[in-house]
């Protein structure tokens, strides 16, 4: 029973970080219809910047702030300089299916190379903002630590903030409208291009938080965020790329499922476990959990 609870809590903590990543991916997908693999690269670069600030100032939260700012700038920059160029040379023919995906993959590689050339490949670490020792209740120590709790709380706060922005502000209304129906939004007077860039900036900032949170307990390297990307993406797909709530739900489910596999089955099957979860969900609901009604194919 105790192990069950532990697993659930840790899964929640892991899943909440994935939730940030998957949320960022869905945000960008909804507004641009592109899966931005470069988001991992943006998060990576933002995290390195956050790392620099955090190690010099010895304050994690300062580093986090800078990571958010860097992420937002990067996100806006990628949309403005990269995506717009990409869409101007709009693609037809057989590569149309593949082109935007590949372009963002290329961008990921580019950012990674730049990071590697600048900082090198050695592992770096940031001092964690909270204790990583498990909580002690009475005589037992559970593997759930203050850091895990902090992560859950941080993500929760961010999700609430985003929900408020999206549901209660004009900006949020513009963002949603531009994502659901860009032409109608334009005819209503919304500057959709600018709004989209803001959406990318938000996604970038969120990605920066995700990267910093991962790095609070994991080493930082040009490859350390790859898993975050993969699982964030899987979570987004499970949730159905169309729904931001879905992506969060999908991420939590994935985090908990993976932790269960980790604790009850064995380390090496974690990845294949992710794959199985994904396949199972997609077999039942090919458009993701939160998709309504009709399945659109092909």
């Amino acid at each position, binding site marked *: 029973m105790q192990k069950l609870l532990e697993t659930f809590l840790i899964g929640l903590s892991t899943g909440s970080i994935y939730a940030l990543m998957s949320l960022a991916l869905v945000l960008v997908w909804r507004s641009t219809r592109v899966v931005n693999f470069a988001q991992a690269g943006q998060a990576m670069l933002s995290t390195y910047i956050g790392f620099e600030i955090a190690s010099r100032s010895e304050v994690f939260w300062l580093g986090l702030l800078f990571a958010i700012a860097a992420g937002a700038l990067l996100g806006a920059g990628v949309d403005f300089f990269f995506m717009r160029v990409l869409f101007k040379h709009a693609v037809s023919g057989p590569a149309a299916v593949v082109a935007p995906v590949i372009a963002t993959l290329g961008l990921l590689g580019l950012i990674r190379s730049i990071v590697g050339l600048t900082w090198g490949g050695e592992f770096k670490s940031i001092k964690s903002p909270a204790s990583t020792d498990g909580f002690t209740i009475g005589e037992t120590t559970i593997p759930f630590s203050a850091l895990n709790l902090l992560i859950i709380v941080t993500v929760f706060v961010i999700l609430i903030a985003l929900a408020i922005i999206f549901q209660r502000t004009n900006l949020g209304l513009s963002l949603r409208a531009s994502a659901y129906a860009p032409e109608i939004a334009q*005819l209503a007077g919304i500057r959709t291009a600018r709004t989209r860039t803001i959406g990318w900036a938000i996604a970038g900032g969120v990605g920066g938080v995700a990267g910093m949170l991962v790095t609070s307990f994991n080493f930082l390297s040009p490859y350390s965020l790859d898993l975050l990307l993969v699982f964030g993406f899987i979570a987004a797909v499970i949730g159905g790329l169309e729904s931001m709530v879905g992506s969060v739900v999908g991420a939590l489910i994935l985090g908990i499922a993976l932790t269960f596999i980790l604790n009850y089955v064995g380390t090496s099957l974690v990845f294949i476990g992710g794959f199985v979860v994904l396949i199972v969900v997609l077999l039942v609901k090919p458009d993701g959990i939160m998709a309504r009604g009709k399945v659109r194919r092909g």
Partner: protein
Amino acid sequence: MSLNVSNLTVHHGAICAINQVSIAVPTGKLAAIIGANGAGKTTLLRTLSGLKHPTNGSIMWKGEKIAGIKPEALVRRGISHVSEGKSVIPELTVRENLELGAVWRRNAKESKESIDQVVSIFPRLGERIQQRADTLSGGERQMLSIGRAIMAKPQLLLLDEPSLGLAPLVVEQIFQTIRDLTTAMNLTVLLVEQNAMGALKIADLGIVLNLGKVVAINHAQALIDDPAVRAAYLGY
């Protein structure tokens, strides 16, 4: 003349959708644009609202050239376009759909006043103000689209087939409302319609398009009385 279209030519790729069309609509008048499918009516509206760039010709609105200007900029100059079919965002509530029309004005107080105004014109929207737009009937969606356009306080209103798919009684209501709005708010209105009779009955001016060209421009009543127009578009 607040709206002056001169020798407008618009292409879809290689196909010429609008061929040297010239139209002048006086301020505060309702012009009905009728014609068969594919005549270029929708393309005309889309070009006027900035969604499409003309190949040639000019569009003058309130004395300024507007061809090729982006739609969101034209909204700020007083042009509102209610496009054909799905002009409502189903995932948003009625209130949000309306608010969307006034976001660019950045004035919360005015926005609220405008919503009240729209609700007084379309009480049914008031009843459903918190509901998601996809729960609305076809007629209610059309009202919502028009309502959203009004939120922008337009001077030029472009309506693309508002009667499409609606029951005759509802169509009558909507046409009457459009007429009332035109008069009350001193709007200049371009009303594209398949329902030629209904449109001409409420219009001041009538324009007949065929294969991208203007084949007739006249007072609406004159077109109703014209036997050729009757035979081709009015069914008798």
